């Protein structure tokens, strides 16, 4: 059996159900793989882990991967299970923000640690400064949770459709109490969870073959997960997920982002992501060879 180490971007939750399902249901084993899944956390940068040799393949957002590539870690996207972005900005209806025009002079909660690019790209598009003041928006670095909204420290906060949004609902907000700005819906989305590996290693045909098998099994896992949400959520729970109900809900939301589980990258979304990063000078040069469709082409015939 070939060993593969997968580094996730965040803690164990239904966001990564496909991989846990593939492992639990033996899809990896069928492909002759022995996969170790390493959960991430708030201060784990998967890009660093892979550069340090701690993983063979990582789950990452495209923006972060391109930024790392710009810094000399040649990450290549080999599959893109998430077709749509799950991020959105949520504002209470009884607050001051109803439309994009109301942002001026307000405080918005944003996640950093590589998750801030879509927000800045959007503000860029709106022509809003992010240094505060009456003509711009004040940015608040938001931590794990939805407290800034509950504590009224921010007028809007970032949420994921599959996660924090439901925490707001749990906290007593009803869907009709909230205005949400969904990045995908606005056409501002940057690619989220994809699978990345090192360009150097991909040159090795044996490794490439291993990745083909890995992606094939992973996508099979995702397919299974999107079709059997509750079972997938339970598998996540068994692997250390927290709060069963929450995981079930997350699974069903995540399923909406997957589309059909073929892992194929949509080149337009890639271009949009690259351009947004270039515009913000996050990366200095147009990325070349930052993705390959070879793997998915071989994996999903």
């Amino acid at each position, binding site marked *: 059996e070939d060993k593969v180490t997968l580094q996730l971007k965040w803690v164990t939750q239904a966001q990564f159900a496909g991989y846990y399902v593939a492992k639990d249901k033996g899809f990896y084993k069928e492909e002759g793989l022995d996969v170790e899944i390493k959960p991430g956390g708030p201060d784990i940068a998967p890009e*660093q882990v892979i550069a340090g040799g701690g993983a063979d393949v990582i789950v990452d957002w495209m923006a972060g991967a391109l930024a*790392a590539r710009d*810094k*000399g*870690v040649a990450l290549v996207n080999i599959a893109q299970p998430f077709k749509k972005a799950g991020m959105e900005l949520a504002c209470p209806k009884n607050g001051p923000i109803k439309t994009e025009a109301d942002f001026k002079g307000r405080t918005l909660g944003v996640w*950093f640690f590589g*998750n801030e690019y879509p927000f800045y790209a959007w503000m860029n598009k709106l022509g809003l400064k992010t240094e505060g003041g009456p003509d711009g928006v004040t940015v608040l*670095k938001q931590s794990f949770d939805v407290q800034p909204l509950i504590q009224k420290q921010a007028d809007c906060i970032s949420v994921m459709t599959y996660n924090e949004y439901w925490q707001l609902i749990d906290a007593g907000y009803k869907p009709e109490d909230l205005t949400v700005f969904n990045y995908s819906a606005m056409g501002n989305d940057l690619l989220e969870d994809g699978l990345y590996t090192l360009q150097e290693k991909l040159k090795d045909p044996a490794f490439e073959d291993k990745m083909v098998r890995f992606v094939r099994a992973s996508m099979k896992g995702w397919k299974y997960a999107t079709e059997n949400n509750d079972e997938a959520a339970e598998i996540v729970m068994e692997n250390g997920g927290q709060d069963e109900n929450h995981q079930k809900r997350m699974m069903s939301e995540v399923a909406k982002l997957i589309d059909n589980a073929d892992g194929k990258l949509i080149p337009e979304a890639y271009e949009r992501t690259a351009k947004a990063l270039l515009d913000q000078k996050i990366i200095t040069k147009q990325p070349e060879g930052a993705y390959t469709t070879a793997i998915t082409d071989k994996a999903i015939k």
Partner: protein
Amino acid sequence: MRALKPSWQAVLAVLLCLIALALGAMSTTEMAASAQPSSPTAYPYLGIKGLMYGLAVVAALLSMLALAPALEALVLCVGSTAVALMLVSGITGFEGTALAPYFLLLIAAWLLGWRCVAVLSSIKPSQRWISTLLRLVIPALFGAWILFLWEAITRGAGIPFILLPPPSAVGVRIANTLPVLWADINQTIFRSVLIGYALGCASGFLAAILADRFVFLRRGLIPIGNMVSALPIIGVAPIMVMWFGFDWHSKAAVVVIMTFFPMLVNTVAGLAASGHMERDLMRTYASNYWQTLAKLRLPAAAPFIFNALKINSTLALIGAIVAEFFGTPVVGMGFRISTEVGRMNVDMVWAEIAVAALAGSVFYGVVALIERAATFWHPSVRGG
């Protein structure tokens, strides 16, 4: 016999140079070039290899002659620094190609640097200004060597930039982002750290006095103080953000909690440190509690209290920075570190770390200077 003054560092350095010479090529490119002498490829240290070895060996040998310490230090300093500089500048452009001789020569140069520091610290100057100068030069040399090693190893071994950038890159980054760094310092150090430190130390001190004054409080407060001590910052910081908002107030609150306990523990230990006879003396004057405290027990506790002030000066800095990982405005050293890690701008991360280290050292140094002045009578200051 008097003409020679062998030192193990110099001898070992010469030995390492010889081994390195015997091993040959210093980089994979050089190896490749010598395998195919026909194709003229460029490789590191084309012309200066001999010069580097020569310098190292000569400096090592010269240093073992019975020179005046100042002269010996000069020879060592010049020799080792020159070799290190050449090593580092030579490998630029060929990162990750270094072979064993590269590292051996590096170690040899470092040994000479070490010897230099050792010689310098054994000098006992008669004039004041020289000893002050030495006090600054020695740690600076030591630090310079840490940087040399770091630069040479990251470049020589080709460590990925996003894992550990070479210090030169960090230096460039610092120079280019001074305004940002200054804004961060302003937010983190002049607000969270200093205010939190002052409040935390003061409250720890007051708690210790209260605990000392009232037995009831001592029995009740100390165990609870112990519990506060280990409230992990990562648990407390989000709560503080919840309570005090996301600006510096919540960071200062975290710093208060972190600095409280060391002050409490050390002050309590210090208040127990005054001698029995001295306490008896104060009793014979029917000196009241506060008089005894002010005139005997606090002065006697001063070494312990300064101990806490010193430990806290660095704790406060760590606390404020780490607390900024959990909800902040978009300025501050901790904010910058956590976001720039996410952006893979590791040089910026290290720039902030370097600034933090500098600020922390200055902070600590100021406290230590005050300590020397205030506890001049303590054996540890009078020289033990």
